[in-house]
């Protein structure tokens, strides 16, 4: 059975649905006097636009189809059974936040088994208010071990195995924010097993696909593994970082369903949630992302660029550790290279962080988190020197 068997097919939007019906009509004399959009005397909007192949018409509520399809394929993999069978729905979202929120609203309205969302400790600061504003409650499971600056795997397994059945659990697909600590594949397998046993609803947040290891398939491994294990996950994607589209707000929300028919019903309800939020999503970022993903040459170029970004970050981690050794630090800094993605939980204490800021003008959050993206080969030596001074 499915979480979504009870989700009914919702009615088409009274106004935008008219345009959908109009598009399906094959009569050459057809006219659309439904949606409120201006036309010139040729019945066109395009004449006012320089590039005749484009228009500024409202996107469908669910977004740009070429984008959402490519987004699903990027996350699930082209060989994914779930993707090929069409038993998924992907809607365009306002980057990661907007996608998370649509999913949260969907859960509030249609997931009656539980109001509880379990977040890892710690998680991205905005997760809590997003789910709260959607009307859900927040709980936590152990995740980060400050003593080792790595994953508290036994703590996580212990907590997750005790989560009440049919609760919602949020997982970071890769490059955990803020710790940079990801489970190894063997650990993901055990997590999947216990999640299945507890019959939990899994919500993946994937904001860094490609950006973490440099390999989009490797970064999506956990998501794909869970789906292969028969876990019908929810997924939020962001293109802010991996395509540098921050201000264009390109993202997507996906629900893996039992079958294509269920996916249609779920899609209809997602549209009903989106319409009173912002009607339909912005085109620009999705169009760029779609072009990149769907054009072989551009896609290849992008994959190389993403790998370049990830490699630079990985190299900064390596250089930071080797520079610390060179400074004569006797501490174990292995976690810096073990962690992955944009952020690094250094293990520095608040007093040490304060000294770094006051004495060296190096700024980071009080929890000792640094954004490795801000480190360069030009300043990594200075950073290592400063860290050594406050920790020796």
């Amino acid at each position: 059975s499915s979480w979504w068997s009870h989700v009914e097919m919702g009615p088409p939007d009274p106004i935008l649905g008219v345009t959908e019906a109009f598009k399906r009509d094959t009569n050459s004399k057809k006219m659309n006097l439904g949606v409120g959009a201006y036309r010139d005397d040729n019945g066109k909007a395009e004449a006012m636009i320089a590039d005749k192949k484009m228009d500024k018409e409202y996107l469908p509520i669910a977004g740009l189809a070429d984008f959402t399809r490519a987004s699903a394929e990027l996350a699930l993999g082209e060989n994914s059974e779930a993707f090929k069978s069409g038993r998924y729905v992907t809607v365009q979202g306002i980057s990661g936040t907007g996608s998370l929120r649509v999913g949260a609203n969907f859960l509030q309205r249609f997931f009656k088994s539980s109001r509880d969302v379990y977040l890892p400790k710690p998680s991205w600061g905005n997760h809590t208010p997003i789910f709260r504003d959607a009307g859900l409650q927040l709980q936590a499971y152990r995740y980060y071990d400050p003593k080792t600056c790595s994953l508290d795997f036994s703590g996580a397994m212990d907590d997750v195995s005790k989560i009440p059945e049919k609760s919602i659990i949020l997982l970071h697909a890769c490059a955990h924010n803020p710790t940079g600590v990801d489970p190894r594949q063997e650990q993901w397998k055990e997590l999947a097993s216990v999640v299945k046993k507890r019959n939990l609803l899994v919500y993946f947040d994937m904001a860094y696909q490609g950006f973490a290891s440099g390999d989009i398939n490797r970064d999506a491994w956990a998501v794909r593994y869970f789906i292969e294990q028969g876990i019908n996950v929810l997924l939020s994607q962001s293109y802010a970082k991996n395509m540098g589209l921050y201000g264009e707000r390109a993202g997507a929300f996906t629900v893996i369903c039992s079958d294509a028919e269920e996916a249609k019903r779920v899609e209809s309800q997602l549209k009903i949630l989106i319409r009173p939020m912002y009607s339909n999503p912005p085109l620009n970022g999705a169009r760029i992302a779609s072009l990149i993903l769907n054009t072989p040459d551009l896609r290849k170029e992008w994959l190389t660029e993403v790998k370049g970004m990830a490699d630079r970050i990985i190299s900064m981690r390596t250089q930071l550790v080797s520079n610390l050794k060179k400074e004569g630090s006797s501490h174990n800094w292995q976690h810096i290279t073990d962690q992955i993605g944009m952020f690094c939980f250094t293990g520095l204490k608040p007093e040490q962080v304060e000294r770094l800021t006051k004495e060296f003008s190096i700024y980071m959050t009080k929890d000792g988190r640094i954004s490795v993206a801000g480190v360069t080969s030009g300043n990594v030596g200075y950073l290592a020197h400063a860290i050594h001074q406050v920790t020796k």
Partner: protein
Amino acid sequence: YLPILGLPEFRANASRIALGDDSPAIKENRIGSVQSLGGTGALRIGAEFLRRWYNGNNNTATPVYISTPSWENHNSVFVDAGFKDIRTYHYWDAAKRGLDLQGLLDDMEKAPEFSIFILHACAHNPTGTDPTPDQWKQIAAVMKRRFLFPFFDSAYQGFASGSLDKDAWAVRYFVSEGFELFCAQSFSKNFGLYNERVGNLTVVGKDADNVQRVLSQMEKIVRTTWSNPPSQGARIVATTLSSPQLFAEWKDNVKTMADRVLLMRSELRSRLESLGTPGTWNHITEQIGMFSFTGLNPKQVEYMIKEKHIYLMASGRINMCGLTTKNLDYVAKSIHEAVTKIQ
């Protein structure tokens, strides 16, 4: 990323367009702006804020009044924002095909104090029927006396009459009367930027301190909805509004669009009258903006769609922009057929 509240140059210019260059509220530094995803996004952020903060801390029970008829999505926006008591106020008089002013004023007299009223700034959607300045004055007087909150929806500024200032008259009048209000603005139609989702929520408050606190709470709402707004469309609007040359060109473009719609209105009316189509058709030229409430009933609408492949709303609302000199005859004939064949 843009700031949470949006592109500063966009926000300031967008609010200035609504309130006017010489707005006392702007001069007194008691306005705020939230860049939003279209008019819908502006309405939603405003609604979410009101539900949390308007009159005490929990406004789920505060009545929200929406005109009959109105844009269908208004209802959904306020329901999804958590309001439990959504009511209607009289607006459209189907018999006389005009504004039911007395009904509207009666509803306002009877509304609980501090109720929220959604007002269409101009070019009422779907009826195309706006109050006259005199009628707006009467509306404002009742609202002031009964402490009713004006939440304006301004999706067609410039598009209705061809003049930005004329179309903003009602909003500016309310400001001059000392109201605190919200105005949800859309730049979808008047800039043709539909799919870039360019909107703005203008907040007018009693003083700068109040507005500042309001904006700080709106930031929190925005942060859990979309974090920060899309940049592209806002940059286009900001650049246009802040360049004298581009601004002049744009105003001219808006007038061109409005004029074409006015032409289509008069052409459709004259054809229907020539055909002798039963009924009166002066409402087509008396109504204003993009839409016309034709008066066709649902069965006649179904005929238009199924037999004539002309798509319009079940309410009989048509988008006048869809008419062209080439299809006017076909549409007029089709309406004629629908009205004479179907009762």
